């Protein structure tokens, strides 16, 4: 019996992952210094050690909450901003400035500026929001702009307005753009939140433990926390994809 397409894809993915793990192992063996480049086995052991610590799970939970809060805020304000921009060319011009500027400001600058004026526990969420907002706003606005004229005319003649127009026509018709914006923002949200946690170092955070591991030259821990972040980020994106599938 021939394998199905889905099975084939999973098989190829597994082979690809194993290939990269083998390369990592080879690199670690060649380098020979586990505190700089630990092997996958060392990293796995360190990760297993972390898994039994309650602090690990608390840090994961708090970081994930920060990511979710920042992304949710960016999405909400992205929606409101795009809605306002479709209603008024003035709002479109006003919002286009921060959207363009934030896109090109380095994350590190944003974090350092935020640290000057905000409490360290708020900085990661704020930075996540600020980094994701332009992506969400731009994508949602593009989606709203691309709603076919046929639907706009339908809404006009049948007087479908306000929240009804927004919820039943505008958002569903823009869903492709909104979906793309959210998935793009997922990765960005994790990267910017963890980077902000590293610099602002709130006690309960994955970023703080990354920094600690680096300071104590604990390579396996550093890699284990990184693997944890990658896995959580992937899980988070999977959840977002599942939620989007309901639309």
């Amino acid at each position, binding site marked *: 019996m021939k394998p199905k397409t889905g099975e084939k894809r999973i098989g190829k993915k597994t082979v690809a992952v194993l290939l990269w793990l083998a390369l990592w192992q080879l690199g670690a063996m060649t380098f020979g210094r586990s505190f700089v480049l630990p092997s996958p086995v060392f990293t796995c052991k360190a990760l297993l050690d972390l898994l039994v610590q309650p602090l690990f799970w608390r840090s994961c939970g708090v970081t994930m909450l920060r990511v979710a809060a920042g992304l949710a805020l960016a999405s909400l304000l992205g929606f409101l901003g795009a809605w306002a921009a479709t209603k008024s060319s003035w709002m479109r011009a006003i919002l286009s400035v921060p959207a363009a500027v934030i896109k090109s400001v380095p994350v590190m600058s944003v974090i350092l500026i935020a640290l000057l004026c905000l409490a360290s526990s708020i900085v990661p969420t704020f930075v996540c929001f600020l980094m994701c907002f332009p992506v969400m706003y731009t994508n949602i606005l593009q989606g709203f702009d691309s709603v076919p004229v046929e*639907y706009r*005319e*339908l809404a006009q003649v*049948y*007087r*479908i307005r306000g929240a*009804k127009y927004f919820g*039943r*026509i505008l958002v569903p018709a823009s*869903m492709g753009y909104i979906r793309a914006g959210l998935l793009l923002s997922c990765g960005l949200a994790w990267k910017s939140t963890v980077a902000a946690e590293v610099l602002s170092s709130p006690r309960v955070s994955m970023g703080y433990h990354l920094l600690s591991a680096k300071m104590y030259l604990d390579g396996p821990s550093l890699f284990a926390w990184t693997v944890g972040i990658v896995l959580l980020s992937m899980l988070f994106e999977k959840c977002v994809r599942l939620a989007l599938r309901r639309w």
Partner: protein
Amino acid sequence: MRDGIVLSGVSKTYEGKTVLQDVSFRFEEGKVTAIMGPSGQGKTTLLKILLGLEDCEGIVSGMEGRRPAVVFQESRLLPWLSLKQNLELVCGPGKDREITEALALMELTDAADKKPSELSGGMQRRAALARAIAYGGDILVLDEPFTGLDEALKERIAGKLAAQWRAEKKTVLFVTHDSAEAKEYADTIVKLNEGGSL
């Protein structure tokens, strides 16, 4: 009683091409008017001008404050909503009876929960008609409403609709290519000539 819809010297030009030229006409209140003419002579543009979807030179009066129920040239059903939800969206709350009756009239009761992509072209057309009927505006504006329906179905449905329009003294404007259809269902037939004049 309203005075009908009056067009005075209506002209429309698209990128240098004249689509309608100095059209003046009165669409009578409570009558069914068929608009005929060759393809590309501005029939759809005329309907869009009446609906306020296109601007024009000249004067259109008698559409102010009306609630038009429209069937566009394409069915324009929202693909993410079921057929019933498409009707509910335009009708608003408390119109369950009108929706059920319109679906029954268009012989679509069994398809109420289906998405437009699950319907045939003819069924989508009937769904667009059902939407306009359920909405129940004070004027019906229909752009080739029976296109895509097979002959037997067309006769059955158009016959029922025309009887209803006459009984209710409804103001109806419909575009058609079919002169037999126009003669059978319309009280007045207007023809757009080449060059966009009436």
